[in-house]
């Protein structure tokens, strides 16, 4: 049985019973084809959140790294997740990426260039969606490694990215805790790569769901590692936690990868030695850690303006992080 079917039917139901009547009333029916794509991504986004919750929460209860009496700081991460996975990301994908991809590839076709796709490069891939997607994932993950690493290199970029690192109560909800402008930069980055390699967002929603689950898991507040070999194949909560360590925040860090640790290993930024370290960014304002959604967004903009106005790099460079045991001072 095709595992996509229940999600596709749910998206179809959403389209038929909610989106179409609303678009009809608002005179937006010319977009009805695009809205189905949005519905698909919104449904898969909701499913991501549900699956993430069902898998990560028991792990966090089972073997938590830290216990916090007050979890208010986690609540804002839930808001970030819902905006990113059900609202903003699907909308950007379909309103911007789709239109741009059609325009650019059509323009290239007109000028006698065949728009690039992996399947055209390797015709044997056509019809092998799983293998094709795996190759797309490897390419995208490679470029995501460099996007993430560069966000720790440029002062202005880290001014935004610091919001992601400021969370002292890091949980599986923290993956989408990003400044909106940082999200837009990431989106443009991925869009450029996606256009260059011809990835199709509609073909692989179920697999995207699984990948996002891995990224959420890597942020989970749980003492889980994948063992010596497993951690060299897929990024584990232990491996990624080292990247979020208090002493690794800032312009120089380790373990930048999102899904595959291979790029950290290749470019010598991997650190498999660190245990479950305390997370957060001591250089960030308190509002980054404990403020509400809008306060954090505003604080991020202020920090960005300050960093652009100030020429020399002032953010602290990271020293090697000391091993951390929950409940002990770091």
């Amino acid at each position, binding site marked *: 049985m095709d595992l996509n079917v229940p999600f596709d039917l749910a*998206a179809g139901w959403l389209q*038929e019973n909610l989106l179409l009547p609303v678009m009809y009333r608002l*005179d937006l029916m010319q977009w*009805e084809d695009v809205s189905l794509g949005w519905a*698909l991504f919104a449904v898969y986004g909701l499913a991501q959140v549900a699956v993430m919750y069902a898998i990560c929460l028991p792990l966090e209860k089972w073997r938590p790294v830290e216990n916090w009496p007050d979890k208010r700081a986690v609540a804002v991460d839930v808001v970030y997740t819902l905006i990113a996975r059900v609202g903003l990301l699907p909308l950007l994908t379909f309103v911007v990426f789709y239109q741009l*991809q059609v325009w650019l*590839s059509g323009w290239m*076709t007109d000028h006698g260039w065949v728009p690039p796709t992996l399947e055209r490069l390797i015709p044997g891939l*056509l019809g092998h*969606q799983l293998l094709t997607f795996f190759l797309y994932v490897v390419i995208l993950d490679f470029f995501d490694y460099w996007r993430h690493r560069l966000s720790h290199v440029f002062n202005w970029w880290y001014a935004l990215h610091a919001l992601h690192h400021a969370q002292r109560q890091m949980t599986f909800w923290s993956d989408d805790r990003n400044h909106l402008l940082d999200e837009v930069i990431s989106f443009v980055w991925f869009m450029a790569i996606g256009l260059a390699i011809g990835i199709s967002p509609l073909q692989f929603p179920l697999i995207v769901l699984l990948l996002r689950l891995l990224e959420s898991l890597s942020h989970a507040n749980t003492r889980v590692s994948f063992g010596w070999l497993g951690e060299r194949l897929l990024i584990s909560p232990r491996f990624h936690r080292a990247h979020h360590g208090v002493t690794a925040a800032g312009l120089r860090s380790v373990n930048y990868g999102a899904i595959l640790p291979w790029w950290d290993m290749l470019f010598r930024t991997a650190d498999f030695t660190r245990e479950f370290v305390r997370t957060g960014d001591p250089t960030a304002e308190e509002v980054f850690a404990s403020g509400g959604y809008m306060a954090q967004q505003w604080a991020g903009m202020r920090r960005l303006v300050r960093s652009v106005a100030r020429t020399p790099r002032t953010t602290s460079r990271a020293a090697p992080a000391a091993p951390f045991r929950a409940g002990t001072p770091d």
Partner: protein
Amino acid sequence: MRVMNLWLAGVLVGLTLSCAAWGKGAVLVVNSAGASLSVVDMDTQKELRRIPVLREPHHLMLTPDGRELLVGDTAGNEMLFLDPATFELKRRMTLADPYQLGFSPDGRLLVVTGLARAQVDVYDARSMQLVKRFPLASMPSHLDFSPDSSAVYVSLQGTGKLAALDLRRLAVLWTAAVGKAPAGVMWQNGRVLVANMGEDNVAVVDPTDGRVERRIRTGKGAHQLFRSPDGKIIWVNNRVEGSTVSLDAATLAVGHTYRVPGGPDDIVFAPDGKLWITERFAQKVAVLDPTTGTMTEIDVGRSPHGIYMNASAQAR
């Protein structure tokens, strides 16, 4: 004798099995959001296989000589040429954003709308060379020709207009407002019918100047128009209302309304009188018997759109 009996039995079993496997005919369904084509056995009403394509196919059209079936892959920027008898892929052609396509009645030209790129391309049907590109704002979607092949009428979904293109001078004759989000277009008895998806009606348009003479209420989200094989009925699919409505082709009087959920889109007509209708949001094809109003459904791929039937095709 014993060997002969065995041979005869073998032949009979073989014939039975091959009939079951090849069926009475086949239907090709274009799964626009699934990047695939579904081959459906008409007899068993089961999907037999899926043919992968590059990105986002929508519509298809048989060549005037019946020898090739063209499928446009919009985001893949490809035209696929299939054998209409077996649905085997024969060749591909790189081509920008082929959404809806149609051959002029004289078979000389192929007109292709590029909905996302706001263009209408006119090709020489034989050589497939681009003859003329019309940039048309915005979202050119469906089309039909005048019977003498002198003009093609294209709905502009984004601007609520219908464009008339002179295919002899290769110039725009006129554009005229016809309703909200116009989609399906059909030449009928010297008039152009346009289904207005943002409204609940089919506009009857004067082909000389684009003036709307009257409107026929069919249902919310009127989307596509199809003429029955005997030419007596025009079927209209209403996307928002979830219905299929019959119009008398001579008078355009509304006949029956049938409930077809799941965003009904394209239709093909089976020899037994049933309508095969793609349901975009239900991942299914509905098989509607208009004599009884009963309907069955067949599972296909994601967002089924274009549909083609070959009752004598070798379905496998």
